[in-house]
């Protein structure tokens, strides 16, 4: 097992290098320009623009810049943002807590709700519960988050005035009222995202469970006289979870990536919002750093999913 993990990690290195190159190349060749914010502003004449370009290190051809970037990356330096002149790592550190507090919590809630819902829906197929859950699931993944987001804002923030719709990242949670304040300001974005996550994972769990329920080993378990509860939880659920685990594990990196649309709507200063603004501003160091971390996480969680298989199913062995 240890050797397997090591081998996988070694294989990951060239993958990451290729990804970093592709990401850098695409950004270098894209028509965005960090200086485009100045537009036609005659107060920023061509000489000043040339100086700024030089200062940002944009004079060199992009392959040279790529090599420079990789070598500083090897020392753990992600570079400096073109826009704020501050360390990219600092920006990510500032944004990550917000993303985890909203997108992360929504994901956890989504998973925790989805597995029992999917399971009950499968066991009590065509019951009222199943119908209601299925309807919600379809609504959840068919309606785009920008729509549910704005809908919630209009109903709960503007008409009912229950919740604020401008996320306050300066809130310090140190007592019960401030915790309630945090709940109030994050409940809408969490609902939007959790609805989507729950819907997707619940449908998956339900389908897998339904596939396993009529199988022979389930009949054997029942005929052994095991209680229905044990049959469902120990046998069916465990076997059905294998593909669900892949889905859940591969979803974790997307939590890091933030929720671009939802963060924008609710003004949650998360990673997704940072990424979108950085792309718009041509802030290459920020974009490459986020995408690279994202790529590393995807590779890593793929591995974790594979390891989880072995835990869930003793028949799977890695040598």
């Amino acid at each position, binding site marked *: 097992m240890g050797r397997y993990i090591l081998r996988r990690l070694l294989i990951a290195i060239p993958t990451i290098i290729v990804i970093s190159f592709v990401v850098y190349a695409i950004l270098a060749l894209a*028509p965005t*320009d960090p200086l*485009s*914010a*100045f*537009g*036609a*502003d*005659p*107060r*920023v*004449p*061509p*000489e*000043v623009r040339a*100086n*700024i370009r*030089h*200062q940002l290190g944009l004079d060199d051809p992009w392959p040279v810049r790529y090599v420079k970037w990789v070598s500083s990356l090897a020392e753990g330096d992600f570079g*400096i*943002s073109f*826009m*704020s*002149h*501050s360390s990219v790592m600092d*920006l990510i550190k*500032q*944004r990550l807590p917000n993303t985890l507090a909203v997108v992360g919590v929504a994901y956890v809630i989504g998973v925790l709700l989805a597995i029992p819902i999917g399971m009950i829906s499968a066991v009590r197929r065509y019951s009222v519960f199943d119908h209601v859950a299925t309807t919600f699931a379809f609504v959840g993944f068919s309606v785009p988050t920008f729509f549910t987001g704005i809908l919630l*804002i209009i109903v709960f*923030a*503007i008409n009912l*005035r229950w919740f*604020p*719709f*401008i996320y*306050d*990242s*300066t809130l310090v949670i140190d007592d019960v009222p401030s915790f309630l304040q945090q709940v109030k300001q994050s409940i809408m974005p969490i609902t939007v995202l959790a609805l989507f996550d729950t819907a997707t994972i619940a449908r998956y769990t339900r389908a897998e469970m339904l596939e396993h329920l009529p199988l022979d080993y389930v009949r054997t378990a029942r005929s052994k006289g095991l209680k229905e509860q044990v049959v469902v939880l120990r046998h069916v659920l465990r076997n059905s979870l294998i593909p669900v685990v892949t889905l859940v594990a591969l979803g974790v990196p997307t939590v890091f990536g933030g929720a671009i649309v939802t963060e*924008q*709507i609710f*003004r949650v*200063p998360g990673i997704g*919002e*940072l990424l979108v*603004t950085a792309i718009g*501003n041509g802030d290459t160091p920020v974009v490459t750093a986020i995408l690279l971390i994202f790529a590393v996480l995807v590779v890593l969680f793929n591995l974790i999913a594979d390891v989880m298989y072995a835990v869930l199913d003793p028949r799977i062995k890695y040598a």
Partner: protein
Amino acid sequence: MRWRSALAVSFSAVILAAACAQSGTTTTSAAPAATSAAPSGPTALFKRGDGGQLNILYWQAPTILNPHQATGTKDSDASRLVIEPLASWGPDAKPVANGLAATIPTVANGGVSADFKTVTWTLKPGLKWSDGTPVTADDVVFTFQQIADPATASTTNDNTVGAKIAAKDASTVVVTYDSPNPNFYQWGVGTCCGILQKAQFAAFAGAKFKDAPGNLKPIGTGPYTVTDFKPGDVVTYAANPNFRDPNKPFFKTVQFKGGGDAESSARAVFQTGAVDYAWNLQVAANILQPMIASSTTGKMLSVYGSSVERILLNFADPNAAGDARGEPTTKHPFFNGPDGLTVRKALAMATDRSTVAKQLYGDGLTGKPGCNIITGVPDFESTATTSFCSTFDPVAAGKLLDDAGWKLGSDNVRAKGGIKLKILYQTTVNAVRQATQAIMKTNWEKAGFSVELKSVPAATFFTNTSPDGANHFWSDVEMFTNNSDPDPTSYLNGWTTAQIAQKSNNWQTGNYNRYSDPTFDGLIDQLRKETDPAKRADLIKKANDNLILNVVIIPIVTRTQVTSGISKTIKGDTPTGWDSEMYNIQDWYK
């Protein structure tokens, strides 16, 4: 020239409704409570820190708080609470001494030399930085030198061009211009010229300027100090304990939040009242107007500066062969021939500015019909152009052309001597501009022109390097917005013969029209030398009339410089169209 509105034209939808036709410079519904400075001392309206938190919302988030490294209005505005210039541009386009300078230097008080070459600024006595150390002339000189140094790549560098600075004593600086400068407030006033603390930035001169920690947490003289800054998200400020006015500022803390979009910003100020100030609400008028009308919490600030959306007519031939294309050596086939003025006049007569203002700019919400290129300063506002530009009559325009021998062909396009009135009309990609183009095309075609529309992404349009750009102007007419300093000398200079944009100067000069008129050049020559205010105003109006009546440019709408929402409870804000929206935040109170 200030051009921030050229970028801020990112309206997202075609504006439909129309109401509240307003005129005048400031069209806020409530009368300003205080003038340039609320009284202080024993009669003060408030004491420092009386108020709680002031919430400001910008839909673009500040990323840096050094105004000289700013990449947009969001940055210069967020820094203005902390970093102040010597003086600010007030609502009447005149400087107000609400910054570091004790008084505004003028020719009358001897602060400006009679030849407009030297300007002497004296600092207010006893000024302190927020860390308690004294502000000296050294700080001012240091700031100027930093900005002027090309190695710092300061975005405010242009204001230092042709100027030098020296400290006369600990509280006096003298700005000297290489040649007589009618715009003698070029350096020192407004967003260009925030004064940095030498002690904080001295170790970061030249190329290291961009790495200064002070860029994210500057020490300033302003009413507030930065307590926390998350770039791209939010700035929090606290009242500056060392601010020069012991009663100001009113608010204990300020939160300057960025991000989101203009429409939900409008909701936050007009519907939920979650914020006290929401910046640049460029939202479709049919959505915005009902929100404003039914709001119990907020009101709209629509303030005009000098921004004019205008159409430029090309005097050179954009279709000339090879290297001669668009060069001043060529002549436009119908705008610059013997019939040039007639054809240009016909085009102007067929221009429907009131429909554009009504349908696309909400009739006073974000713009009003405009007749002049020099606008916003009452002394310089010409009335000689009014009757000319209030004529909108495509049929009469057609007749004018008919009489001059431009006959309608079978294709409904007028022609004379084998030359057809075919126009290529370029502008930037922008919903409002494309809607404007469509309105123009309909009316111009009624007069017998044939109009082809072209739109170019703003990043390509506003460059001197692109053949599709405004500077090359390889089309017959083009449209964009520009604006002027309060003193329009250098702005008007952009239509003189010497400033013609062409290949030899890499299209870096301002006369994109390639207009060349000895009378106009003469007016500007006189304007550069004239020091008498009344005579200057007269010359400026004459120059304006020359451009309008000769139809070098067709102004369409005068656009708002400030288009923000403010809480009805906030008092003391007297918005200006010439400086940062935060220029007098020290006077705001509830």
